[in-house]
C-alpha cells in the first residue's frame, strides 16, 4: 500500500515532455480484431542494463496484453518472413541512470517511412519503475490506437485472510498487491468511485448485518456510508457520480434503491416481493441493469434510473446474475449457470447476440469491465482455488492475476492518472 501511495502522490517528481504528433496511427474501430505489429529493440542505457531490461519487459507485457498491439521480434521473424509480422512501428528507448533516479526517453517511428510519431521523456525513481512502465505503455497505445490502454488502472478485490474477507488492491497485471482493510470481518463487493479516490463496499465490520461503507485511499480510513438502520448490500456509483444504487433488504425482501452520493435521500426503485439485487448503471446513468427472480428464476432486467419501464433482458438458462453494463453502453456482461458452474456471458442491451466467453473449465463469477471496455476481470475456481483472472472482451488472453487462493469479487478502477 505504501508503495502505491508513494507512487500515486509523488507526482511532481515526474515530468513528461511531449513533442510528437498527436494524430492517431490507427484508429481502432469497434469490433476490429487487427493488431498493430510493433518492434521494440533492447533499450539503450548508460550503465543500468538490468533496469532497462526490466522496464522493457513490463512495457512489452502491457502492450501485448492491451489487445491492440503485438510486440514482435523482427530478427526472429525475418527467418519465417511472415508478411503479417513486419513491424509497422518501431519503439526505441534510452535509459539514463543518475545517482538516485533515472530518466527514460522513448520514440515511436513508423518503420516504412521513418516518420517520427512521438518522442517523450520521463524521470522516475527505480522503486516506481512499474508505474513509469505502465504510463509509457498507455501512452504508446493512445498514440497508436486513439484510446488509452488499461495499464494505469488497478483492480480491487476480496481476499480471504484466516477466516475473514478483506479488501485488497493490485495493479492491472496482478503485481504489487496490497491489503486495504484489516478489520477481520467480511468485506464484499467493492466498487470504485469515478475519481478513483474511494471504494464503496458491503461490510459486516460495524457489527450486525451487512451495511455499506466507503474506503478512502488518501487516509486509509473506512467510514459508514448510509447512516440509517437496515441491511444494505451491492452498491454501485452512477457513472455521472451523482448517485449510488444499492440493495436494501426489509422483512426478508431485497429491493433496489438509490441514494445521493453522500448517502442521503433514499429512493426506492423496485417494490417487488421477489429478490431484486445486483444493480449496475448504464454509462449514461439513465438506466440500471439488475438481477431479479420475479419470473421464478434469477434473470437480468433493465429499468429506468427512477424504477420505471422494467423489461427482461435474458431468457436463456435458469440462473443469470451479476450484470455489469459495458462502458460503451452496448453490452451487458453477466454470469450464467451452466453444467460446470457459472460462465461469463455477454448480451447486447437489445437482448440479442448472447455469447459466452468462458470455457466451462470451472466456475466464473463477478465479471467487471476495464474502464475502456477492452477487458474483463472476474474470479474463477478453474485452478481448484478461487483466483482473479482478466481477459479481453472476446474471452481471449485469459490471464491469472492472483495465486494465493481465496480471491474473489474483483472490480476495475477508472484510469488513474499518476503523472498529471
Amino acid at each position: 500500500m505504501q508503495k502505491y501511495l508513494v507512487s500515486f502522490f509523488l507526482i511532481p517528481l515526474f515530468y513528461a515532455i511531449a513533442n510528437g504528433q498527436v494524430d492517431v496511427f490507427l484508429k481502432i474501430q469497434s469490433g476490429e480484431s487487427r493488431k498493430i505489429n510493433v518492434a521494440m529493440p533492447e533499450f539503450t542505457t548508460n550503465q543500468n542494463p538490468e533496469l532497462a531490461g526490466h522496464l522493457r519487459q513490463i512495457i512489452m507485457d502491457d502492450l501485448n496484453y492491451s489487445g491492440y498491439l503485438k510486440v514482435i521480434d523482427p530478427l526472429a521473424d525475418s527467418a519465417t518472413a511472415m508478411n503479417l509480422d513486419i513491424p509497422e512501428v518501431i519503439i526505441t528507448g534510452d535509459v539514463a541512470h543518475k545517482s538516485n533516479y533515472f530518466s527514460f526517453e522513448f520514440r515511436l517511428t513508423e518503420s516504412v517511412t521513418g516518420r517520427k510519431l512521438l518522442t517523450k521523456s520521463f524521470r522516475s525513481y527505480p522503486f516506481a519503475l512499474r508505474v513509469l512502465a505502465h504510463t509509457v505503455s498507455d501512452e504508446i497505445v493512445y498514440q497508436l490506437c486513439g484510446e488509452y490502454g488499461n495499464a494505469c488502472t488497478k483492480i480491487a478485490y476480496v481476499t480471504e485472510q484466516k477466516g475473514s474477507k478483506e479488501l485488497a488492491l493490485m495493479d492491472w497485471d496482478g503485481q504489487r498487491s496490497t491489503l486495504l482493510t484489516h478489520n477481520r470481518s467480511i468485506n464484499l463487493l467493492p466498487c470504485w468511485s469515478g475519481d478513483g479516490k474511494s471504494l464503496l463496499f458491503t461490510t459486516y465490520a460495524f457489527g450486525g448485518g451487512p451495511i455499506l461503507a466507503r474506503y478512502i485511499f488518501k487516509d486509509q480510513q473506512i467510514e459508514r456510508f448510509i447512516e440509517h438502520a437496515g441491511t444494505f448490500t451491492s452498491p454501485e456509483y452512477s457513472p455521472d457520480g451523482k448517485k449510488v444504487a444499492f440493495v436494501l433488504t426489509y422483512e426478508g425482501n431485497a429491493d433496489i434503491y438509490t441514494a445521493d452520493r453522500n448517502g442521503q435521500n433514499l429512493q426506492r426503485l423496485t417494490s417487488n416481493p421477489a429478490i431484486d439485487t445486483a444493480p449496475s448503471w448504464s454509462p449514461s446513468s439513465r438506466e440500471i441493469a439488475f438481477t431479479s427472480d420475479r419470473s421464478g428464476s434469477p434473470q437480468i432486467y433493465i429499468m429506468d434510473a427512477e424504477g420505471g419501464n422494467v423489461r427482461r433482458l435474458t431468457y436463456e438458462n435458469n440462473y443469470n446474475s451479476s450484470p455489469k453494463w459495458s462502458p460503451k453502453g452496448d453490452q451487458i456482461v453477466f454470469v450464467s449457470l451452466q453444467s460446470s458452474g457459472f460462465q461469463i456471458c455477454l448480451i447486447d442491451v437489445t437482448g440479442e447476440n448472447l455469447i459466452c466467453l468462458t470455457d466451462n473449465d470451472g466456475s466464473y463469477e463477478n465479471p467487471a469491465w476495464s474502464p475502456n471496455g477492452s477487458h474483463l476481470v472476474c474470479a474463477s475456481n478453474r485452478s481448484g482455488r478461487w483466483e482473479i483472472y482478466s481477459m479481453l472482451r472476446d474471452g481471449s488472453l485469459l490471464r491469472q492475476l492472483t495465486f494465493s487462493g481465496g480471491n474473489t469479487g474483483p472490480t476495475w478502477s477508472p484510469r488513474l492518472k499518476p503523472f498529471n
Partner: protein
Amino acid sequence: MKKLLFCLIPLLCIVLMFTTCSKKTAGVQSDKGETAAQPSKTPTKTPAEVTSPDTKTEPSKALPAQPVQTDKTDHEQSISVTTSLGNEILQLDMVHFDYDSYELRPDAIAALEKAAKILKKYPDAIITIEGHCDERGTVEYNLALGERRAHAVKTYFINYGINPNNLITISYGKEKPIDPGHNEDAWSKNRRAVLVPSDTK
C-alpha cells in the same frame, strides 16, 4: 439494548442449528406473502414509484444509526439466561433448506418447534437468526436468499408467539460455509439457518 445487540461476532454465542429434510409447509407464511404487506409500501403504489424506506421501516432492527465500532469488551458477557438458553439450544440440530429455496421443510418445522418451545421459556433472550447459502449462486443473490431464509425462520417464531423484537436476522450469503467442500453433501450442509443467542435486553 442497541449496544448489547451489537455483539454479533459470536463471542458469547453458542451456535445452534437445526436439521431437516424436504418439502413445503402449510403452517408457515411464505416470504412473498409477508413482503407484500410491508409497511413502506402502500397498495396504491406501482413498482415504478419510489418511496423512502426511512425511519418507519424496521423499528425493531438492531443496527444503530451511528457507526459503532465492534468492541467486544462492551458486551455483557455470560448472562445466565444466555448460557442456559445456549445449553438448551445446543441440543437441537440445524435447519436446512433446498437449493435456491427458503421454504421451511417439515423436518425444519419440527426442529423449529422444539426451539420455539425453549425460546418461550426465555422471554428476554435476544436471538440472532443467521441465513446461509451454498456456493452455487452469486454473492449478491445469495445475500438476498440468506436473508429470506433467516426471515422464514423469524416468521415461524413470530407465528409461534415469540416477541419479534427479540429476533434479529442476518444473512451471510455464501460467505460462511461450514463445509468447504464442492459437492452436494457440503452444499446441503451449508444451506442453513442458525440460531445464535446473542444477549438479553
